């Protein structure tokens, strides 16, 4: 009994919910209350599940601090910053319903989170540039074609391309508006079929990857 509860019943839920989504799409022009309700549940469950990654991260830093592991000071710093931001945010929310109504939370949000968010995400600009010189080689026909197309698109994306040679925008735009389309469209079509294959295996309960790291109980 317990094995059915741990495996077959789970796959049945996946399959049933998937079929409900199909039934709504193909047989209900407006919307179907059953599918709409389940979708609304999925939104809420997804929302609650977002805390999972956080729990693991907090566990890791609490252990790091307790056991004085290497660089434990940074784990302590993490916990302090996390608690201050969490409490001030919740205080703001419980007070007026909008977290940023709390002065400390709003100040940290605008003056610490915003610059750090932009800075961390933009770091890739550095890496692309050094990789372009040190690693991007036309080692074969594939890579050569890719680099030629890439350079023309780069120079046609920047207005300066036209100043260098009037042909650049024309060739660059051909690559952007025609040249890339078959390759990208092939990824689209093949990707769609890949998603359907993966969903179909999940529908039949043949996809072990989802359930808690795929380990069989």
């Amino acid at each position, binding site marked *: 009994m317990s094995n059915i509860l741990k495996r077959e019943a789970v796959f049945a839920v996946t399959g049933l919910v998937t079929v409900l989504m199909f039934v709504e799409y193909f047989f209900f022009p407006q919307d179907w209350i059953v599918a709409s309700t389940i979708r609304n549940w999925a939104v809420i469950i997804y929302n609650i599940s977002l805390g999972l990654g956080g729990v693991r991260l907090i566990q890791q830093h609490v252990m790091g601090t307790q056991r004085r592991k290497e660089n434990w000071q940074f784990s302590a710093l993490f916990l302090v910053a996390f608690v201050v931001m969490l409490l001030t945010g919740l205080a703001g929310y419980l007070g007026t319903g909008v977290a940023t109504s709390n002065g400390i939370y709003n100040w940290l949000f605008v003056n610490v989170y915003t610059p750090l968010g932009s800075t961390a995400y933009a770091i890739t600009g550095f890496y692309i540039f050094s990789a372009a*010189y040190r690693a991007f080689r036309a080692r074969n026909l594939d890579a050569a074609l890719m680099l030629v197309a890439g350079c023309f698109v780069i120079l046609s994306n*920047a207005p300066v391309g036209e100043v260098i040679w009037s042909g650049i925008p024309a060739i660059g735009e051909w690559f952007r*508006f025609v040249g890339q389309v078959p390759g990208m469209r092939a990824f689209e079509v093949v990707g769609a079929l890949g998603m359907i294959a993966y969903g179909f295996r999940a529908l039949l309960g043949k996809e072990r990857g989802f359930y808690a790291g795929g380990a069989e109980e």
Partner: protein
Amino acid sequence: MSDQNIFDKLQNIDRRVFYWVLFITLMVPFIYPIGLPVKVVQNTRDLYEGITGDNINPGDIAIMNFGYGVSAWSECAPGFTVCAKALFREGARIVFMGSQYDVELSMNKLMNDAREDFANKVYGVDYVFLGYFTGGESAIAQLATDAWTVYPSDHYVTPDAQIPLMQDFHGWQDVTVVLSSDTGDVGSYFLRQWQGSHGTRLAEIGIAMNGSTDYPYYLAGNYFGLSIGSRGGAELEVLIREPGEATTAMDSINASHLLIVLAVILANVGYLLSRRKA
């Protein structure tokens, strides 16, 4: 010293030298601007014309989705701002929403960048800020069929029942056009659950990286218009005749793009020479 080992020496330059050269190159044009003209391409023109003139009537409802966060402001905010201005000037009513934790900051920035347009608009009547949502594709599909379950209230916790605009917005039937600006997948959710399922007019104010994957959908008519990256933002600023952040950034884009193409060419010339020698 034969030219071949110059390239070997250049190849082993410390990575940090490249980083300093790039960062300085990006700064110089802000101090000494050049201001080259920006040519408008068809996909951006279709986006602008699709939300102006007789394609939008006063009172129509448009959804504008902040699918980008503070980290992509320089890429998406300029184009997003121009589209919001254009829609307001056509008398459209706008529902702002977003899938990022910092959507409130993006909304504040928009209200500041387009303050003249927001000045003569009434909150709750001409526009509403619904704020953050989560739930991935399920939430976007649910927004199409029963919007009030995804957003029982706006960002300021005012229940939908007390917001005039929300009385006319319950699902896809009430929406004339959806504009999504994404670093992530929400644009493709609107594509599958709104445009693909109900034929809603959809356009993307996209990041440049997604330009290649978005463009075939524009060609197939799934997107009626498409702006690609900060270059698209600069083109939209040309179309609305109000130069802004994207136009200012174009000079740095020019300098840095020249630099990377030179780097690729230099590297490969050295590589081919050393391969011929070997």
